[in-house]
């Protein structure tokens, strides 16, 4: 999933300062799961903004709350049409895609990001998420024992460890395991070390010249007007 973290409160206060009616909009998918932008975080943010404004003697603003199932999907944005009537600005707690989807759908409405979108990752323990996928468009996990060197090696090396690891940890941080030592151990366990002996050419960056688009082969007709850009 996409992992995000809430922006500092002072940044959000600065963004909403010129506006009177502000909608705080959560997202029910990724940012809900990573505790950055779901219904609960919308409510917390609402309280935090009110408290900060009360302390600053600035109580002119009127906030409303809503959370959509997904902000990155035009179908769900339609539910907002009435909610944004009379609203001066929206703070979106979705990932960057959600913020942009809103901006595209509501051309006259200022939309601000309430979170910093961080990475594609997973929870490794309660409240801790680690990056696992760089969305590079050229997956090589079959050769690396299911451990991604592009994401987890800080240099994205494809041919084995650099001279940096110290006791199995990365030169960048002693908290970070060397991806290539993990890969080595896993391939050894799987009896597939020959994969590590292979030479891997540099990444092909053509699939990721930005922005990327995927046109799905199935369901084009069934999905009607949204069918031209589907996955």
């Amino acid at each position, binding site marked *: 999933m996409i992992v995000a973290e809430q922006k500092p409160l002072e940044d959000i206060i600065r963004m909403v300062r010129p506006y009177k009616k502000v909608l705080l909009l959560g997202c029910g998918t990724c940012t809900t799961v990573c505790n950055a932008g779901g219904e609960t975080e919308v409510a917390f943010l609402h309280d935090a903004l009110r408290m900060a404004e009360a302390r600053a003697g600035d109580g002119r603003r009127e906030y409303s709350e809503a959370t959509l199932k997904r902000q990155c999907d035009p179908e769900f944005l339609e539910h907002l049409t009435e909610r944004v009537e009379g609203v001066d600005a929206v703070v979106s707690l979705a990932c960057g895609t959600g913020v942009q989807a809103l901006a595209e759908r509501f051309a006259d409405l200022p939309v601000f990001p309430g979170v910093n979108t961080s990475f594609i990752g997973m929870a490794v323990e309660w409240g801790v998420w680690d990056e696992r996928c760089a969305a590079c468009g050229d997956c090589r996990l079959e050769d690396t024992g299911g451990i991604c060197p592009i994401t987890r090696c*800080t*240099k*994205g*090396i*494809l*041919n*084995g*460890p*650099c*001279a*940096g*690891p*110290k*006791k*199995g940890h990365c*030169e*960048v941080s002693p908290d970070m395991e060397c991806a*290539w*030592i993990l*890969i*080595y151990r896993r391939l*050894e366990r799987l009896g597939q*070390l020959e994969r*590590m*002996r292979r*030479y891997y*050419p*540099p*990444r092909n*960056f053509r699939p990721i010249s930005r922005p990327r688009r995927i046109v799905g082969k199935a369901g084009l007709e069934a999905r009607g007007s949204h069918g031209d850009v589907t996955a």
Partner: protein
Amino acid sequence: MARYREACESGKFVVSGEIGPPKGTDVREMVHHIDLLKDLVDGLNVTDNQSAVLRLGSMAVSHEIVTRGGDAIYQVTCRDRNRLAIQNDLLSAHFLGIRNVLALTGDHVSVGDHKDAKEVYDFESVQLIQAVKKMNEGFDWAGNELQGSTDFYIGAVVTPESDPIEPQKLKFEKKVEAGAQFFQTQAVYDMDNFQRFMEYARGVTEGQDVKMMAGLVVLTSVGMAKYMNKFVPGVFVPDDLLEEMASVPKEEALHKGMEICARHIRFCMDNNVCDGVHIMAIGKEEIVPDILRMAGLI
């Protein structure tokens, strides 16, 4: 011009030193070090933004060494340049008379002094070795024919004290296969372990003309040795050397470190452990001639 390569190919025991370009434009000390060492060693490495700290460029300094009559080993890292820029630099270096390249992945920007910079790593060391080899064969990375090929002697690094060593060995084998013609090791202090590593390395390079140089970093104090054990990846100073460094008063520690370095040079030479040494004095290049004298090399 190709003095380093000729020395390597002649079968003699090769000695190289290292020049760290300054952070700024005042090159007086660096030029003094170049002049001091250029005729005493077979080649001088020039570091490329060493430890990800911004410095004067390795190509310019390598060129200066060649101009002054020495031979340069031009270090190239993959951290700061993409494949277009690296190949462009290689052609430029060749134009400037530089003939030895040491291919490195390069320390991450986050350990240096521009921590917010974007790291590149479009190539990494194995791929860079291949790229240089391709240019030597007359082609760029994309397969286009070059109007005149390069003639680089291709070097790489290996870390005999890596822990664990097995993944590092696989990487070493890939570098040999990719076309590395000489290797400089990360600093080694445990000569028994180095000898064992060299037996393995000789097995890998058997039948190929690959030269192996022991990397020797001069110990300057017992504190420095302990610091390296704790913080520098792939470096291990054994207890007997720590004790030896601690056995002398502080002001004699550097001299002790020089003695140890000279002893290790002799050990490698007399026992035919490797093909040469690469001496890194890290800012104390003044002492290198004395070390060479102590080792009986000059």
